């Protein structure tokens, strides 16, 4: 006689990213001494600093992935937000922050509206959007990096708090917490996952699919821009072209954090863990004083690995093998 175990809830899936982060933290502490190097509290402070900027891009991208779309323009809005903040925040950083994030939110909403209204492939439309944002950033910055003269803002943002945190990382943590709460305590999270899981069924069930998709793109651009603003203010420099690294980081962090490529799965907690894992990995190589290309080699390989790991074939194979395992638990029959 066979019995069927109940399906695990999504909480189980979110455990893996956390365990992976813990594992990386242990590796960062334990491995460098073998090679004559040592990690310190500052290593973890640095990892949190990276997570503060790049993690926010991942969080934004992750929201669009949860609703079954993909915002390729996050790296560009990250640069645009930072450039706008530096250009218009000379007098007041708050004004720079509001303009940087506000303009990008509007930009994201326009992209989201186009995707929702006409059902256009989001990767294609955000590729165009990415070029537009990059073009505006480069034009504003005269195709080079721009410095921010108000160094006090950077000092304020980077000043260590309890040796581990800073205002920059605490701001990012607050954003992750806000998204976590919104997705778990309000209807929004259910609506987003439903939209990603099955758009037509969600629409029939009364979920405001178009508004959710549009809003996700607005949030994505806004969060990426906030990451850019924190980075620009923190380093007193805005870059004109960040390259593909922020996008690679964000995608890999989302996939490591359990965000499904087909939508409907994932959350802020997993993305935070994924981002911290990657940031710790980067710090690990820094601690070992490895060449820059080693880090790129590992990041590129990881992106391909997690993409293949999240592919339909692997997911199907894994589900089938799990189903075989769970349905094949024998129960002693009553005599």
């Amino acid at each position: 006689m066979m019995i069927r175990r109940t399906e695990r809830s999504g909480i189980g899936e979110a455990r893996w990213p956390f365990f992976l982060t813990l594992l990386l933290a242990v590796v960062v502490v334990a491995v460098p001494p073998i090679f004559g190097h040592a990690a310190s509290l500052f290593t973890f402070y640095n990892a949190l600093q990276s997570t503060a900027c790049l993690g926010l891009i991942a969080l934004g991208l992750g929201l669009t992935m949860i609703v079954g779309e993909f915002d390729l323009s996050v790296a560009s809005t990250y640069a645009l937000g930072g450039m706008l903040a530096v250009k218009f925040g000379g007098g007041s950083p708050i004004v720079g922050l509001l303009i940087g994030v506000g303009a990008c939110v509007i930009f994201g909403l326009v992209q989201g509206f186009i995707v929702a209204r006409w059902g256009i492939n989001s990767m294609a439309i955000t590729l165009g959007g990415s070029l537009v944002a990059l073009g505006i950033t480069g034009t504003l910055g005269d195709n080079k990096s721009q410095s921010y003269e108000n160094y006090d803002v950077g000092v304020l943002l980077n000043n260590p708090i309890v040796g581990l945190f800073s205002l920059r990382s605490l701001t990012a943590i607050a954003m992750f917490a806000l998204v976590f709460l919104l997705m778990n305590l309000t209807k929004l999270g259910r609506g987003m996952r439903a939209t990603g899981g099955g758009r037509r069924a969600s629409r029939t069930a009364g979920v405001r699919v178009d508004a959710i998709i549009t809003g996700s793109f607005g949030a994505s651009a806004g969060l990426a821009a906030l990451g850019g603003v924190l980075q620009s203010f923190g380093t007193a420099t805005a870059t004109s072209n960040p390259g593909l690294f922020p996008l690679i980081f964000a995608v890999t962090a989302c996939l490591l954090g359990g965000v499904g490529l087909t939508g409907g799965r994932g959350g802020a907690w997993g993305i935070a863990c994924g981002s911290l894992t990657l940031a710790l990995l980067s710090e690990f190589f820094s601690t070992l004083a490895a060449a820059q290309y080693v880090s790129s080699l590992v990041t590129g390989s990881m992106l391909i690995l997690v993409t293949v790991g999240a592919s339909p074939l692997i997911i199907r194979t894994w589900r089938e093998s799990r189903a075989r395992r769970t349905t094949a638990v024998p129960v002693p029959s009553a005599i």
Partner: protein
Amino acid sequence: MSTATVTPVTAVTPKARRSTSSRITLGVTIAAIVVLIIGTLTTDGFYSLANGKAILNAATIVGIIAIGMTYVVISGNLFSLSVGVTAAVCAMTFLWALNYGMVAAIVITLAFGAIVIGLQGLLVGTTGANPIMVTIGAGALQEAVATWVSAGVSVYPPEGAIYAWLAAPLFGIPFPVYVFIAMTIIGELVLKRSRFGRSLFLMGESPRAGRASGLSIATLTTGAFVVLGLCTAAAGILIGAFNQSGTLTATGTLTVDSISAVLVGGTAVIGGRGSVLRTAIGALVVSAIEDLLLIRGFSTPVQLLVLGLIVSAVVVLSQINSGRSNR
């Protein structure tokens, strides 16, 4: 976020398909003519033989890669975001391989390009992995390995290597232009007349229907990426021959230029529709626009901005026109 959006496929008659195709061809041609007229009327020096050659030269490299990209887009696998890096690495490979002679260098580079991009196609085709992410990851890997192998310095050809004719004029026209024309003709014929080409259209239009009719998605996807690899390698060879040195930064905006050429040429971003011939015209339009902006003193970011607006507009119009929606 499906890479090959599954949509209800309505019965499209061959006549209707031809009509849509003719409309797109007409639209692309009109766009090309409009750009030429605006450029001629508003910009000194745009309408000149020297500038015409400059546009043709730029369109050649973009166009050759875009031919391969057309195969990938038609197959329903969106596009590759690492062709710029691969072209740069191919240029470096070609210049290094000249140590073994001209023919060997060409063969090695073509094989290298086909294998590097073909492997990405194999991964996408067999597992259904997202092509954008696989190609971004592969781009980062290639960059890292190239930096490692070359120690971050430029690659130069061996002393006395005979290869400069690859970038030199022949009967007054640069040799790469002949390569571009030949590849356009071959690319169009293979796409429209061969079983492989027709299967790509079917797979791009509806992967389910393709699978049901016995097509091997893995083989076709790998095939489309191999074609892209060959085209990228060919472009890399020409870039290496022209620059006479190979660096990772040599290809600039080549990736987005080639994608733009494909989209401006009216190839449907969700697959199943497209033409190499129109892509070639698209490459000319993109190069002419960039040239126009350059002559008028606009910087690279402005060119990116304009390209982005064009890509967005084309994607929206193309999708509305196709009637295939993800809603």
